[in-house]
Each structure stands twice: as structure tokens, then as C-alpha cells.
């Protein structure tokens, strides 16, 4: 084994080379994302089955959601994925830490916007209108048992997703601090890259949640 001269900060003793450490980190994050696929997958499986068993109610239920907020949030989240990718690219190309922090903060702002829209214009409205099963549910009218089941899924799934967003914002905060402390360089930016994977994954979950909850079955009159 070659003697290891000066290693960049963040090099751990159990590795032989920086390259090995970087690959291990990436593989570890991808493996973690696979567990996340199956974690959300349990919900998706249940959703698919129940939707085919209670199709009518689930279409009715999806009409309780407001498409424009869902669509706006999709756009916000996609934009945040772009800024996250650009943050990593900025680090890769050895740009100043100010630029990295700019993109990270922009990502955080977009993430926070997503949660704000979700809270203020969707969940709060659902709360007022008695659409949250177990918390504020008003029976009657379009609020049938089948719609209640749909709303259970809606809140479990968007709630879990929002939880992941909050965790993501926490990770981004740590990254901003690490960047400010000059921990990253063009040679060592693995934490940024790995966190980016997580952020994009959360985006992908929403890319599926949006059509599954808001759109499929159609929104045209009489659907």
C-alpha cells in the first residue's frame, strides 16, 4: 500500500484512499435511498390496492385537492433540485464558498416555500373544511367514508414527504455551516454530493405523489 501523504480534511482512517471513501459514501447513500424507496413503497402499494378497490371514492377524494397548489409546489421543488445541482457543481469547479452558500440558501428557501404552501394553502384549508381524518373531520356531503380513506392516504403520504423535506432542510443547514467553515474544495465535496442525492430523491417522491394524489382519474368535468 502506498503511503498516504497529506489527505484532505474529512478523510477517515479506515479507508486507504480518498477515492475509496468517496465511492463508499455514494454507494452508502444510494443504498439508503433504496430503503427509502421501499419505505414509501409500502404506502404506494397500499394506495394502489385501495384505489382499485374504491376507485369511485378515490377519484371523488382527489377532487377535494386543489391542483394549482400541487402544480406550483411541483415547480418549486423541481427548481430547488436545479439549485441543489448547481450548488454541487459550484463546489466541483472550485468556485468561492460564497457562491456555494448562495445556491444552498436558495435551495433552502425553495424547500421552505414548498412547506409553507403545503401548510398554509392546503393543510390549513383542509383543517378548516374538516377534511383531516382523526383531527378535524366533518361527515356528510362529499365527505363519505371512501373519501375519508383517501384523505388518510393523502395525509400519511404528504406528511411523510414533508417530514423528509424538514430533514432535508436540516441537512442543508449543516452543509451551509460546513461550507462557511471552508470544509469543501474541488477535491473534497462528498457530503454536498451525497446530500444532493437525498434532496433529489425527495423531489422524485413528490413527482409521483402529485399525479397519484391530484391528477390520475382526470380533473375534467364529469370525471
Amino acid at each position, binding site marked *: 500500500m502506498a503511503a498516504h501523504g497529506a489527505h484532505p480534511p474529512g478523510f477517515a482512517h479506515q479507508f486507504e484512499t480518498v477515492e475509496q471513501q468517496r465511492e463508499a459514501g455514494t454507494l452508502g447513500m444510494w443504498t439508503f435511498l433504496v430503503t427509502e424507496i421501499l419505505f414509501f413503497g409500502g404506502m404506494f402499494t397500499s394506495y394502489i390496492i385501495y384505489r382499485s378497490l*374504491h376507485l369511485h371514492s378515490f377519484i371523488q377524494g382527489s377532487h377535494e385537492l386543489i391542483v394549482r397548489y400541487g402544480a406550483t409546489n411541483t415547480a418549486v421543488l423541481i427548481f430547488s433540485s436545479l439549485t441543489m445541482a448547481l450548488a454541487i457543481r459550484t463546489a466541483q469547479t472550485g468556485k468561492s464558498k460564497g457562491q456555494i452558500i448562495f445556491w444552498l440558501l436558495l435551495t433552502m428557501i425553495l424547500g421552505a416555500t414548498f412547506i409553507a404552501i403545503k401548510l398554509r394553502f392546503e393543510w390549513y384549508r383542509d383543517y378548516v373544511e374538516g377534511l383531516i381524518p382523526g383531527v378535524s373531520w366533518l361527515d356528510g356531503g362529499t365527505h363519505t367514508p371512501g373519501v375519508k380513506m383517501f384523505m388518510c392516504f393523502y395525509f400519511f403520504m404528504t406528511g411523510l414527504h414533508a417530514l423528509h423535506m424538514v430533514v432535508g432542510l436540516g441537512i442543508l443547514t449543516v452543509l451551509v455551516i460546513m461550507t462557511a467553515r471552508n470544509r469543501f474544495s474541488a477535491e473534497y465535496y462528498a457530503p454536498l454530493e451525497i446530500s444532493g442525492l437525498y434532496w433529489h430523491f425527495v423531489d422524485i417522491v413528490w413527482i409521483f405523489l402529485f399525479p397519484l394524489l391530484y391528477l390520475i382519474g382526470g380533473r375534467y368535468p364529469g370525471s
Partner: protein
Amino acid sequence: MSTATADLHEAPAESGVNYLNASYGIRSWLLTFDHKRIGLLYLASITVMFLVGGVAAVLMRIHLIEPQGALFEPETYNKLFSTHGIIMVFFFLVPSIPATLGNFLIPLMIGARDVAFPKLNLMSWYIFITGAALALYATISGGVDTGWTFYPPYSSHYSATNVTIVALGVFVAGFSSILTGLNFIVTIHKMRAPGMTWFRLPLFIWAMYATSLIFVLGTPVIAITLFLLGLERILHVGIFDPAVGGDPLLFQHLFWFYSHPAVYIMILPGMGVVSELVTAFSRKKIFGYSFVAFSSLSIAVISFIVWGHHMFVTGQSIYAGLVFSVLSFLVAIPSAVKVFNWTATLYRGSISYEAPMLYALGFIGLFTIGGLTGLFLASLATDVHLNGTYFIVAHFHYVMVGGAVMAYLGGIHFWWPKISGRMYPDLWARIAAAIIFLGFNLTFFPQFMLGYLGMPRRYAVYPAEFQVLNVLSSAGASILGIGYVIPLVYLIWSMRYGPVAGPNPWKAKGLEWTIPSPPPTENFEEIPIVTEDAYNYPVADAHSYPDAPEVARV
């Protein structure tokens, strides 16, 4: 073996500093990132859990001596079997070999200084302890009576016990499994020493890799399932409740999607251990290396597509029943391949019978019975009669206790000199192995008969005609209990008073035997370069072989 430094092990061994005495004090253990120390932390914690679960089992068996129940009200009995199941499955068997021997051995066997993510490794121990503490708290503060399977709507709407806390404990412990599995996968992919190709890996590593796959792919599903169950209990809204159009069988699907593979989380590492033991004590290359290796992977994959055989009588679709039945039979094939290859490894070996080997042979025998009785349950028609009876109880104890626990004990005995640097008294160890084998069979064989006679499981009281077999089973359990206490005593004794073991007391092959016992903190002074296959034991030419007919002629 296999390294430039091979056979140097006589020299540096007893020089002094090792992972055990490198630092002292409780902090040096609780804040350690050393995979070997973390393995020991797991060893200590799961031993405690094993004792808790074991006490519950003993109380149950005493209770069942009388048809009307000797000790408890049904309510208490229900809590006992639930505690026994939950503790043993989620807090002993699942982490047993992976978290102790796996943590200790994987870096040593592949020639690495540590696992890929040591901090994550320590974190997963703390997560495990948190989950275990929740489960113990729930047990002490009133218990839980749902059985380890948590079937709704009983668990979600009817049980008035601590279901939520226990479910939370299992949920939390699940993340420990996920992180351990993730760590092992990355370690095995990225940390192997130069020259340690996939097909030079010890079979224990293959088994651990397969196990880690199940950890990573299965555990998230039980996590989300228990999460939904918890929400249903707390908010009284949910998706498994038939009263609002939900389907309680969906819970069973999601539950068994994890919990059937979890059975292989328990047995696969055991198979890995047995592959090591059989080769080491017959000083022979494993018969059919690649078949044994790939059978581990195929068991891991197949384990995910058979779960519906737990649901043949639950009102599952008849078509799903047929699909799951045919898939379930598939598991038999790689399992059979393993058993035959272990047996064939003995052929023309140089076999000795130290305690670990006795455990390994016991494993092969009991796993054979456990596996074959699985055929009764994969067969749709017989499963209808046997499902939910003591036949099931006997079958999975043959696999999990006769299989996984025998292998676990065998592994602990085999690597104990490496872990502690000391030898235990071999005679006592052999006696204990024999007692465990006999006690085990006496406990669980009558349960096969009980099951066929139709005695349902989870019965606090039972018709009198089943008493004789129940008394036999309880008698066996007391023998088994004694068998489990003996190793506990002499292993602890040996840590202080046992003779010094030396680097390789068994003259076994494998990188872990090339370094001192106990190993130094950094494992290898220089990362070894591997140049040969696993289990490359020296071979005699035919003429020097004492039994061979050629010799007689010469």
C-alpha cells in the same frame, strides 16, 4: 493463509496492546467506533434480551404443564408469549449473528481496518438500545398481548395493552438493522483487501452480504407498516380497519413482506457460520464453493416472494395461494443444496470434534428437520390443517433455535479465542452442546405431534388429551434452559481464567486467524494482500491418507 504475512502469526501475537486493553473505562466503550468493541456491545445487549425472552419461555412451558394452566391467568400468558416472540425475534434473533459476529468479523475477514462507516455503526447500536429499552419498558409497564405478529384489528382497536410503545420499539430497532445492513453492504463492496476477490471471500461474508440485502430491502416495509398501525391506534383512523372499508389482510401482506425474509435474516448468517465451522474442523475446502455462495443469494431473493404462505387460510385469494405455494417450494432447493454440500465437505476430511463442530453438526441435523417440515406448510392442503397449530411453532423453532441459535453458539465458541484471547473448557462446552441438542429435540419434537393432533398455538388452556406431550415438551425446555446457562458461565469464567489462546488455536484458515488474539485496534499492521482462495487447507496426497484403500495395498 493467503497473505504475504501468512504464518507470521507465531511472532507478534502476545506483544500486548489489543482492542480490549487499548483504552479503559466505560466511556472508551460507549463512545468507541471500533467495530470489534461495537460487536461486543451488541453481544452484551442481545444476551440480556435473550435472557428476558428465555425467562418468558420458561414461564410459559411451566404454565402449560397443566391443561388448565399451572400459573397464570390467560391474560398474563398472552403477554408472556407476546413478549417472548417480540423480544426473541426483533431483539435477539435478527441482530444475533449479524450484529455481533458480523460486526466483529467482517472487517477482519476481508482485510479491512474497520467497517465503512464506524460512526454509523455506533449509532445503530444506540438506536438498537433505544428500541430495546422501549420494548422492555412496555413489557414491564403492563406488557403487550398481541403476539409478535400485531395483526389488526385486534392490535389496532381491541387490545388495551402497550401496543403502540412496543411497535415504536420495533420501528426504532428496525433503523438499527437498516444502518447495519447498509454498512455491511458498503464494507463488503468497497473495503476488501487487495486480491480479495468475490470468489475468495469466506462464505460467512457471502451469507452476511445476503443478510444485509434483506435488512436493507425488507426492514423499511415493516417500519412503514408499524408506523401506519401506530397512527391507526392513536388517531383511530386508518387503512387496515374493516369498519371503514379497509383490509386487515393488507397489514398481513406488508408485515410478512418483511417478516418472512426476516426468518432468513436469522438463518442465513447461521449458514455462513456453519460453512466456516465445517471447513475448519474437517480441514478441508468447502464442497461446491460457488453453489453454497450463490445459494445464499438466491435464498435472499426468493425469501421475498414467498410471504403469502403465512396466509393460506386467512381468506387470501386462492390464486395468490397457488402462486405463493409454488414459490415457497423454491426455497427448499437452495437450502437442500447447502445441506448436501456441507455433508459432502466432510467426505475424506480430517474431522475433529471440538465444541464448535458439535454445534455445526447439530445445526445441519436440526436445520434438515426444520427445513423438511417446511414442505408440509408450503403444501397448500396440509397447511390448511397445520397452520396456526403447534406444528408451526415446532417448525420455526427447529429453524430458528435449532438452526440460528445453534449456529450462533457455534460461532461464538469458534471465534471466542479471537474475541477474548482465551480458551474456554472444551469438555464443558461439549457437554453443553450435547445437552442443548437433546433438550431442544425433547422440547420441540412433541410439538410437531401436538400440531398434527390439532392443538392450536397461543392457547393458555388446552384439552386434557394434549397433556402428556405438553409435559414432555416442558421437560425438554428445562433441560434446554440448563444447556443455555452453562456456556454463559464458562465463557465469562474463561475471560479471566481461561488459558491464552494464541492467534490460531484451531489452525484454521482465514485472515482473522493471521492476526493476534485479541486483535489490535487497527486489525492489520499492514493491509494484507490476498493471493489464494478461501479454505485452502493443505491436502494430503492419496498415499499418505490412512484410510484410503491404496494405503492398504502399499
